[in-house]
């Protein structure tokens, strides 16, 4: 076997190994997180160590602690289901009623303890028309 063929074979096996690894990342908990819908979570009785959930903030559910403004709890809803979330930390500017959020953290006793709270970034701003007058 000449040098070029050997090198080609080595490269081939390295790539094959890499691809095999990628197809198996599902088993690696440190790299992946399962996305749950709110309805799935509402009917979930087991605790889950790592979850990611997307939904909307239930109007009038934001409760900021009287003692520490960084402490907040709120409900995330989707259709008719909702789940309570607690979070400690600085909240994004767009955090308000009906804002779309993505929450990551753990789930126990029907409560999400969020470690990460993201609101949808405003790279597109599709709002309903305001300042209108009906004829």
């Amino acid at each position: 076997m000449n040098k070029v063929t050997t090198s080609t074979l080595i490269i081939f096996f390295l790539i094959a190994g890499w691809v095999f690894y990628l197809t198996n990342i599902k088993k690696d908990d440190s790299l992946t997180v399962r996305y749950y819908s709110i309805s799935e979570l509402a009917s979930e009785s087991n605790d889950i160590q790592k979850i990611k959930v997307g939904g909307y903030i239930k109007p009038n559910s934001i409760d900021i602690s009287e003692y520490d403004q960084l402490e907040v709890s709120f409900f995330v809803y989707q259709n008719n289901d909702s789940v309570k979330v607690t979070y400690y930390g600085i909240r994004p500017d767009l955090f308000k009623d009906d804002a779309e959020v993505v929450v990551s953290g753990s789930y126990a006793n029907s409560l999400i303890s969020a470690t990460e709270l993201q609101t949808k970034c405003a790279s597109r701003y599709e709002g309903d028309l305001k300042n209108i007058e009906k004829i």
Partner: protein
Amino acid sequence: MISQIGSIAISLAGGLIFSSFIFLGLFKKFNNQTYLQVAERAILATSYCIFLAFFCLLNELLISNFNLQYVAQYTSYETPVFYKVTALWAGQAGSLLFWSFITALFAVTYTFTTLKKLKTLKFHSYIILAFIFSFFILLSNFIANPFEPVSSDIIVQNGNGLNPLLQNFFMAIHPPILYVGFTGSAIIFIMALAASISKDISFEWVQSIRRWSLFVWTFLSAGIILGGYWAYNELGWGGYWAWDPVENSSLMPWLTLTAFIHSSMIQEKRGMLKKWNFLLATSTYILVILGTFITRSGVISSVHSFTAENLGPMFFAFLAILIFYTVFWFFKRKSYLDTPDKIDSFTSREGGFLYNNLILILMCFTIMWGTLFPILSEAWDGNKIYVGASYFNQLNIPIGLVLLFLMGIGPLLSWNYTSQSVLLNRFKLPLSVSFLSGIGYMIFSSLFQIYVFVAIMGVSFTLSSILGEFYKSYKKQKKASNFLHSIGKMFLSNRHKNGGYIVHIGIVLLFIGFIGRAFEVEKEFSLSPGEQIYFSNYVFKLNSIKSEARDNHYAFLSEIDVVDSSTNQLLVNLKPEKRIYFYWNSDPEKRQPHSELDIYSTIQKDIYSIFSGYDAQKNIGYFKIMINPLVNWVWIGGVLMVIGSLFAFWPSRRDN
């Protein structure tokens, strides 16, 4: 009136592009050049109609014609003129017209420059161009028409105005720059397909497609870097890259295009790798459309907000057709694209390029896999699994480090074959510098991290290798009267090569910036005026919190003294603000808070301050401080990349 002209122009563009298909069909049937000429004119006329529609929309935005839904949604009387212009691409309908506008610009340029020289590619180029063009015109006509009037039973007194987050210079200019890159990659796609279908891959073609690639690459790079710069300076999470699907979507085509720019050099020099290059050139545009599909369909959850109209199925169909067409012609022209020449040795310049290609593609594949993983895993067993930033970092950092070393190894290799003795001789200097800096890091760093260690060695290896190459070229040429003149002459002597080296130095500087991320620290805390806190060798003292009503927002202004605790000297006075936009609105839901950052930026580190909340009753401010080392090197590296690429792209006298 003007809006009606714009609306008619878009409809007319649709008719014209449709007619171009008919004339292309007639040309195919009767082989009469006149038909081809008419088709060409139809495509050009389509472009002119799109120009007209674009300027009509611009006019309506500038005069605040709120009878148009789009104008009312994205601007108001208070919107500054600059942002009225940038509202052109702030929403779905406008951005699609803007996409057509850039396609039109490229269609005209491609027809009058490239196709003037490569006449045999005209027919197939026009078919593909017309197809791509018609897709976007179709969307503008039937799905998201920017000239759509507001409902007849309402009067809009004032528009919504542009989101304050988007009222930032870099945010305003990064989408169009990125769009130029995205749209430009269509020309590379068209050229690759047209030349293969017509079996006419010539030396001129390779040169021409390389120039287009450099142009597109420059814009893609600038767009990506500017997006990061905006996120860092405006969004307030202290980072510039979050591995979000939208960001990944712009990085994937950048990687394949980078690979293409390198491997097409082998085709230019030795006529090899035609099949591989065909795949790279076509997959760049396919990845652009895949990215657009991801961005605009909402199939993957992203922090970037998506639009209300669902364009997903349309883009999916478009994507499927592009892939099918490309694969079909790839197999049909497989034997034509076969090249008898093989690479003689892997210790050669072309071998180096090949490694670089493999690494870039591996990186692209890894990112694509991670980005699409939620869809793939859901299709597999119904569970939607996301991969976090840890996946992208953990897998891409080692690949990136190999790439960093390869950038230094490449210039040391000769074409065809490099003998062992030559290799040893050339590697001596960069290897020694690399080892010395690695040892230096081990001695002086209090915290040893393996990736930082390898990155420092890689940075010094590649930097010394490239600077060594510059020195060699400088020594080789005839000396001019003074030093600066000699340096200038040296750089101009081979624009492509030296431009490439400048880009590589830019990327090395980016890596220096990336190293800084390993040392980032942050703290969240609350302070009342007069209180102070110690963090990471600095004392942060809150002097005051004041409030002020301004033109379009209400602001809480904080003032923080930052004292260097080692010297006890005042370093800087930071003034992060908390702003409330639309504060006059009686509905609190419509008010929008925004944290205006203040950053103390030096070449070594940034002190990044965010005023995130204010409790007026207790007079307590909530703050976040981040110490981000070496961030400025990312921007310097980015600028150098763009300069280097422009330098390589700019035609020299010899080219003319």
